[in-house]
């Protein structure tokens, strides 16, 4: 759970769709462009009060995960040397989730404009179809083959590399 360990920085409060409140320090929050934009807007107005940002599309379960990611990346933000360690952490982080969570996380990352998390999720999904055939990809993504046999033959032809 996001905590308020460093109290010197100003903090924001984020409200999830199921009305749970999360106190997030500014450095962690600025990993999300959406939250950063809100903070910047309020600071321009010169407000010194605690800001409350409601996120109507993100449940508290998913928000917890996004904030866990943001916290880790905020810790490493000034440290270029531990790139490899961070990558390893990213990988371990995503490996824990089932596909449904991964989906929600991807959408939350998109909504909260956390580009690095969005890229990470997309890469993870892309990697998960590695070495799969068309049929296997359909099964993984739960989609129906809606091509006619003729269309399928055309696609096969179109997909072949042309050496002539």
């Amino acid at each position, binding site marked *: 759970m996001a905590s308020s360990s460093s109290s010197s920085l100003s903090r924001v409060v984020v409200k999830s769709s199921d009305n749970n409140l999360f106190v997030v320090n500014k450095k962690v929050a600025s990993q999300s462009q959406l939250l950063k934009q809100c903070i910047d807007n309020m600071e321009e107005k010169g407000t010194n009060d605690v800001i409350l940002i409601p996120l109507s599309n993100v449940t508290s379960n998913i928000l917890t995960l996004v904030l866990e990611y943001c916290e880790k990346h905020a810790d490493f933000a000034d440290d270029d040397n531990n790139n*490899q360690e961070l990558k390893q952490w990213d990988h371990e982080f995503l490996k824990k989730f*089932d*596909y*449904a969570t*991964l*989906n929600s996380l*991807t*959408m939350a990352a*998109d909504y909260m404009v956390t580009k690095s998390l*969005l*890229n990470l999720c*997309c*890469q993870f*999904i*892309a*990697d*998960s*179809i*590695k*070495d*799969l*055939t*068309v*049929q*296997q*990809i*359909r*099964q*993984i*993504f*739960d*989609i*129906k*083959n*809606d*091509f006619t046999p003729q269309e*399928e033959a055309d*696609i*096969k*032809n*179109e*997909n*072949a*590399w*042309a*050496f*002539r």
Partner: protein
Amino acid sequence: MENNDDSDRCRLPSQSIGDPPWLVYTHGKSKKKKIQTFCKFTDSNNNNNNNNNNIVYIKSIPELRGKKIRGTFHGWLVLRDVNNRKMFSLWNIARSQSLDLPPLPYLPTFGINEGEIPLSGVVLTAPIPNTSTTADCVLLLFFNFQVFWCRPRLRRNARINWVAQKLVFDGKILCVAQAAILKGVIYSWAKVVATDGPIRLQVVSMRMVDGELKVLSLQHAPIISCKHTCIRTYFYVLESCGLLYLVNLYLPHEDGNIISVSKVWELDPPTENWVEVKCLNGRAFFLGPCGSTWCWGSDNDSTVSSSSSSVGYRKDCLYLALDKKRILYSYSLAERSMTPFQTYQNLQTSVVSENYWLNVKPQHYRLAAIQDRKEHNRKTQIHIIEEKVADEGTEATESLLISILPTDMISLISEHLHLFEYRNFRASCKMFRSLVSPLPKRTNKLLPVPILIFFTTDDGQCRMIDPSRDDDSYYCNHLQLPEYPFTVHFCKDGWIVIHDRQLVSLKYLNPLTRVKQDFPLDEDLKISDLKSFGFSTNPTSPDCVTVVFDHDDFGLVLIHYIQYGDQKWKDCRLENQVDFFFAGYSCPLYFAGAFYVLGVDGRLGEFKVLGDGQQSWRIYKKPTTRIKYLHSYHLVECHGDLLAVFIGHMGTWVEVYKFNLSKRKWIQVKSLGNYCLFVSNSSSFSAEPTEAWMRNRIYVPRIKGNRIVFYSLDTCKFHVSGIEDDSLVNLFGTTEPLHCFWFWENCA
């Protein structure tokens, strides 16, 4: 495994029916009492040290003392005396029965006071009978066009006479080499010398008719036309399963390992035509200086070949033992790849006086053929069952339910897809197809590093291996190919140059975008002779200059070049009588306004196209004098530097040098830092891989199993990708796909 038991030393090692032939080396200092080493080895992808599973027996067989084996037929060895070269004898291995023949009337020479004509071929037409009732058995010795034949008998006091005969047909002299026999007809490659014409290589068939060897026919020989002129070619003929085969192989370099082409033809009995075959129906052929033989090969699957019952030689492979050499080449017809092996490193003496394939027992082909079919059926059944299991397995997998993702997310995912899945992703449903563009954007992560592409057949199947995926999976892609077989000459930034071997056209194309363009052809540009190719930049750019290094005439470096849009090639003939620079086979590199090319000896040539049709040519010294016996040499641009990679004979050493352009000096490079190199004759790249484990490596176009072989500058050794803990002593035992290149569309 060695067996040095003294009592056993005089006996031949046992061979059961169906066992593969022994590869026998004769060596030893004593001229009369030679040592024979019998080798059997395992051509398997599994064992890392390729000498581990080899079986070796060291023998000194009394019957072979002072004799040279010249052939094996029907269980009989044809032996020639080392001292008295007119003396021949026959030895039956199974019955341990010897038959001494009378001396030859004379030894043929090329002329008076000229050298002796070497024995070029031997045939024993049938097993030797006890009585004279069957007259089928004839022993023929071919000394080029001079033939001696006799009818050997086992009956005591049987008179055996040599008959001398010259082989002349239709006024042409026939010089016969190794021969094979099928249904009483002797087939051989022959050099045909006509009085007023060039020497031709043809296939001759002969038969004993009325006490005379008659030439039945001379046929046009189906030989490979080959682009290299300084190559050694090998011709073999053998009989297997009642059919006759011709084999033709090309070796471009004396000690190199590149066999550029290798083909097998089968004689179609009704039409008497030679038909090229692409597989040996499960057999392995053994080709050697003293005759050729065959056996049933084991499956390519390494788990099968490591079992005790297997023969250790892979099916559909040609095994080539060169005269007096300890390297055995394995050419896979199915994969069109070449693997050299060191058969036996610890031969007691370095000098091998002869080597040959010895099949003590005949190969029982009919029985074996039935067994093979049964085995095949069993495998297909198992295969079907496995497929069903796999289907059930995939049904059970959890689905990603991507369809509920917003559409922009799907195109976002597609940007992270690897090239191997990109098109499958698009092909999965209409929505995906409409969302994902047919041509990937340049920002896509399609190819993080170059991939190795190789063609296993001429009909459009290719395999692709991505070194950044460190498993042994590979991707099979179907290609749209030209109607005729082709060769890939060069690859740069997603563009490849291909040369269609039939139509004799030369073009560049991008296989992904399908943009293509023909190069103009003129008489001076003989496509079959081209050595290497290079662009200065993207070939569709108006600045682009394309250069071709032609096969050097002696004392002349020949370069063709063409500017984008020009209709004619310009030639540059450079007098070379002082320098003797021979451009190598690796592609030239365009760097800082000039084309650089490495010579076969390691020197660097610099070619510049100046304005007004002028050119400049310079040669720079090689980095060190240590550079000799090169396996391969490559130029590659890396992080703004011009690097040269030199690989010693079969990978015994690897050195990297940087060429300092301002000081014109070479500096040795001990580390590539965050970079890795991908080298081959048709394309070389450097990349800064995201995977840390790929750094500081040089990937070479060789594979073991389906894994790529690389040289690590950290360990200074060769390794196989994915099994890094083991290292290779050299490149023996690794396979070179013969039609391969690194492909990369560099997004940087």
